[in-house]
Structures are given as C-alpha cells and as structure tokens.
C-alpha cells in the first residue's frame, strides 16, 4: 500500500529565509504532484514531476523528484509572506487507482 509522508507538517519561517519541505513515499512511482492551498480555498496545481531527476521552478519555489530515494523536495528561496499556505504532495499509484496525498505542510512566513 502506498503511503506518503510529508515533513514538516507545520513550518513557521522568517521572510528572506530558505527552507525545504520533504515528501517521502513508500512504493515505486515516477509521477508526483505538488499543490498549494490558501485558507478556505481549493487546491491549485504547482508542479508535475514525471521522471527521476525532474526539477521544476516557479518563482521562489523549486521542486525535485528522486524516484530511487522515493523522495521529492519543495525548496523555498527567500520566503515572502505571500507564500504562506498549505502545500500538499500527491503520488501517483501504479495502475488505475487515485492519487495518494500527504497530510500537507502548513507554511507560515512571518516578518
């Protein structure tokens, strides 16, 4: 059974600092997704990572995938308040089964 673990679950960071959110998963997969959710809103797609070594960047966020280690990272560079949100990773399970989501990382960027 595929399990997805994110850490940390809560993260309070200062503006201007760098930090990394980790997403580990338990069985082989070569497709991983990152989503952002603002309070009271729905999920918005950030990145789709489709192969080992994939790296994608958008603004201050960079996501990478290491399928051998079963690990994806979401790196935040020089955090700003607007990045405060909950970030979810989701892993594609082989076959015809739904995505498995992590529990989310609630990020708060403070001045």
């Amino acid at each position: 059974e595929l399990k997805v673990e994110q850490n940390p679950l809560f993260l309070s960071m200062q503006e201007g600092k760098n930090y990394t959110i980790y997403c580990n998963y338990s069985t082989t997969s070569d497709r991983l997704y990152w989503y952002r959710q603002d309070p009271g809103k729905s999920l918005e797609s950030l990145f789709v990572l489709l192969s080992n070594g994939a790296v994608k960047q958008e603004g201050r966020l960079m996501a990478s995938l290491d399928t051998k280690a079963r690990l994806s990272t979401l790196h935040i560079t020089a955090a700003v308040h607007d990045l405060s949100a909950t970030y979810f990773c989701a892993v594609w399970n082989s076959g015809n089964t739904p995505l498995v989501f992590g529990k989310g990382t609630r990020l708060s960027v403070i001045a």
Partner: protein
Amino acid sequence: EADIYQTPRYLVIGTGKKITLECSQTMGHDKMYWYQQDPGMELHLIHYSYGVNSTEKGDLSSESTVSRIRTEHFPLTLESARPSHTSQYLCASSHYEQYFGPGTRLTVT
C-alpha cells in the same frame, strides 16, 4: 486552466435535510473524485469514478452517495444531513494531472 465547477459554493442547512452537491467538468476527463476536508487538515477521498456508470468508495467511510450518468457530471448526495457532515467538499477530475474545483463549504445546523 481547469474548467471544473461546483455548486453551491456555500450551503447552510438543517439536520435531516437531503442535499446534492453538484460537480461538472468540461475537459472530457473520465476520472472524477470527491474529497472531504476540514479546514487546514488533510484531504480524505470519499468517492471516485473512472467513467460513466462506474463509482467506487474511497478511503474515508461516508454516508454520501454518488452517481455518474454523464462523463461531465458527478453529483454527491447526502440523504439526511447531520452536523458531523459539516466540512468542505472538493471535487476533482483528471487525465494525467488532477484539477480541483473551487469547493463547497457545507454547514449542517
């Protein structure tokens, strides 16, 4: 941009009422999903469908039911609403990438 719609966006209803939450998508996706999420918490998959006349229960036991008579439409019904059903309900659809609707925030008094 994803074209997936949910109505109503907000609903306050009394205990015992029957309600249907609507979800439609215009992308022609075969796969559709319903999630339940309390504020700031993890997502719980309650139902999914991989095509017309195909529905499956998800990981979280739910008193709701779903139907999939048309590809673009995946409504969720609660026969008798209870305060424990108070939550946000998110609909999603996918081909390779999964897109989410704006959600329905349900309050049962």
